[in-house]
């Protein structure tokens, strides 16, 4: 990793290991004396929180898998068995189900943090893209996980979403149907489908874990961004990760756990849908099929487009477009704090995502469709028009000269003026 570790083994075993497999050196360099910007706020604790979420999902999932039966006939019963008969089974299940929602709350905050402070900009493009991949795999994992209890929403959610692929028939007749049947493992959603979803649901978190390792590796090469969007240049700009950043991460994590526990112990079903307590029945379609809350903005985009294929393309593009953000944003300043115009657009975009979430939960009719189209338009316009154009025309505020100055005030030296080339696009 980029940062040289000041690790000094103290014990004889430590020295012996250090010459053979320097794990301790790696850990020390990455998580103990790694220099972190001294101006990080609590939004930077979400990376650690996400790591916790991933570990928690794997652990609780492991226990659930010991009692769960992935068959069409027994899946629902086995979840009821876990809830009703397994010792502390209800608690493990609530942790896992609520945990998935908390994971998404954390990841959305983490992503919007990156968008606000320009964390995707050079030299963090690969770090950002790895993040987008993680997000994508997280969505796949959560979607398959939601199928497992085999309730009405599980079954019909899987039916609706897998059926989307049949829209490929509009391009190549027959191909869509073939893909859908291949996904299902038959001619309809059945226990076979459930079985393969379980297999994948168990696999994907480990794929995420691998991606997270790369993500953190890239982070430690590029170094952390920060609210000022400046690089660490001198010692005064940084504090060692231990104890400073770790102490802050611990506060953030526990505050997050407080929210987590509120949902897990007081209102475990609030974030889910009541219909999923009814066993899957292929003959009874629920009046409203809605995905889990964290998919709603994308679901709204899917339904906003009048053509089925178009909707599917728009939905996947809404995620894929994130990959290009480092090149769509033309501003030379990272942090929105110093971007008087873009800042407003950022909040408009955040509102757009909220609004799409709300509309995704509403029936696709009347005025809801109209607004879903308006917000879908802005969703894409934000990336394709606002990001490139605002970066070119905006005059950013004066930047502090250093991270240290942004914390301690200009008394420690005057700032630089972005002066002459006020609105010049970033040079690459």
């Amino acid at each position, binding site marked *: 990793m980029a940062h040289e570790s000041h690790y000094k083994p103290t014990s004889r075993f430590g020295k012996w290991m250090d010459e053979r497999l320097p794990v301790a050196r790696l850990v020390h360099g990455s998580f103990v004396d790694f220099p972190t910007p001294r101006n990080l706020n609590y939004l930077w604790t979400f990376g650690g929180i996400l790591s916790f979420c991933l570990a928690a999902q794997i652990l609780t999932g492991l226990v659930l898998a010991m009692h769960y039966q992935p068959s069409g006939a027994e899946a629902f019963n086995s979840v009821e068995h876990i809830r009703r008969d397994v010792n502390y089974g209800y*608690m493990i299940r609530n942790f896992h189900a609520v945990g998935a929602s908390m994971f998404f709350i954390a990841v959305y905050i983490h992503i919007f943090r990156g968008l606000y402070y320009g964390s995707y900009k050079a030299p963090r493009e690969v770090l950002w893209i790895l993040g987008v991949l993680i997000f994508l795999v997280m969505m796949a994992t959560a979607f398959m996980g939601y199928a497992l209890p085999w309730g009405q929403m599980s079954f019909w959610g899987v039916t609706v979403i897998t059926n989307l692929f049949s829209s490929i028939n509009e391009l190549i007749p027959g191909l869509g149907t073939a893909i859908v049947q291949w996904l299902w493992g038959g001619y309809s959603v059945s226990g076979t489908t459930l079985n393969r979803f379980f297999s994948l649901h168990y696999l994907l978190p480990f794929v995420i874990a691998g991606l997270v390792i790369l993500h953190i590796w890239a982070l430690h090469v590029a170094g952390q961004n920060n609210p000022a969007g400046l690089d660490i240049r001198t010692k005064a700009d940084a504090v060692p990760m231990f*104890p400073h950043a770790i102490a802050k991460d611990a506060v953030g994590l*526990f505050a997050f756990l407080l929210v987590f526990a509120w949902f897990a112990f007081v209102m475990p079903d609030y974030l*889910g849908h*009541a219909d999923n307590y009814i066993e899957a029945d292929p003959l009874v379609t629920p009046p409203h099929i809605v995905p889990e809350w964290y998919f709603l903005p994308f679901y709204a985009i899917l339904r906003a487009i009048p053509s089925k294929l178009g909707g599917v393309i728009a939905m996947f593009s809404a995620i894929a477009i994130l990959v290009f953000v480092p090149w769509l944003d033309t501003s030379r300043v990272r942090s929105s704090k110093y971007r008087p115009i873009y800042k407003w657009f950022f909040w408009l975009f955040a509102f757009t995502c909220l609004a799409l979430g709300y509309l995704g*939960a509403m029936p696709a009719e009347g005025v809801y469709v109209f607004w879903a189209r308006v917000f879908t338009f802005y969703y894409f316009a934000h990336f394709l028009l606002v990001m490139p154009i605002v970066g070119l025309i905006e005059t950013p505020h004066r930047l502090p000269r250093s991270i240290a100055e*942004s914390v301690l005030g200009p008394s420690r030296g005057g700032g630089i003026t972005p002066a002459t080339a006020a609105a010049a696009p970033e040079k690459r």
Partner: protein
Amino acid sequence: MSKTSFKTFGLGFAAVTLLASAPAFAAEGGGHHIDRQTWAFGGLTGQYDKAQLQRGFQIYKDVCSACHGMKRVYFRNLVQPGGPEFPEASVKELAAQWPNQITDGPNDAGEMFDRPAKLSDPMLGPYKNDKAARAAQGGALPPDLSNIAKARNVHNSAFWPKHVWLMAKDIATGYQEGGADYLYALLTGYQEPPAGVKLADGMNYNVAFPGHQIAMAPPLSKEGFQTYADGSGSLEKNAADVAAYLTWASDPSLNSRKSTGWVVLLYLLVTTVLLWLGKKRIWANAH
């Protein structure tokens, strides 16, 4: 400066989180407004009222079990802590006399046979399968009631600013009793159909039921309610008691979940504060 921009960010995200949890409230086609009741098991520290669960079970047994089974509830559950906690001996007797016997076997002659239920058996309904139930109920299916309180909810179909406000309020107050509120509203919701509404054959008018036409005849009414051992009773009391009992049936671990929950929350709160104080000391020389 950094503080304020962080605050705006934080507020923005609080809003994101709240709004994002919309599905629990997906509008259910202009549903009827359902009044919220006060429940012993509501809120952060709520626990089931044992006497109420016992009364509720009595209503289930004397009225609802004529049509509805509860196949995920076992007689032994009626004895366990956190539920109605009937004495074991009386539940054994109850199981033995339960009219819907357990099909067991095959016996040594290779035949299936019916035998009386034991503590370890489920509380079955009168019908062997859904087809038999529909045949007996004029085509309608009386659902198994084991999970009914979790499988129903009330819906927030308010205009969006109010919708968001109600959602925030529900999260802050830990509102999770939608199932019980719906059941209470259903059981007390039978009325004469308003002028102009034509009921289909065998249907009854109910304000709480989606679509308002329900095949279940009023199981309880203003005149026809159950009286308890102490001679009291009313439609409202019956409805509340059986709704509480059904909530327990679908969520038998609520007592232990909530009694653990507030301790966990308190622990996390104290630890968060301590960690924050520690963090402040560590950072004291860095600002």
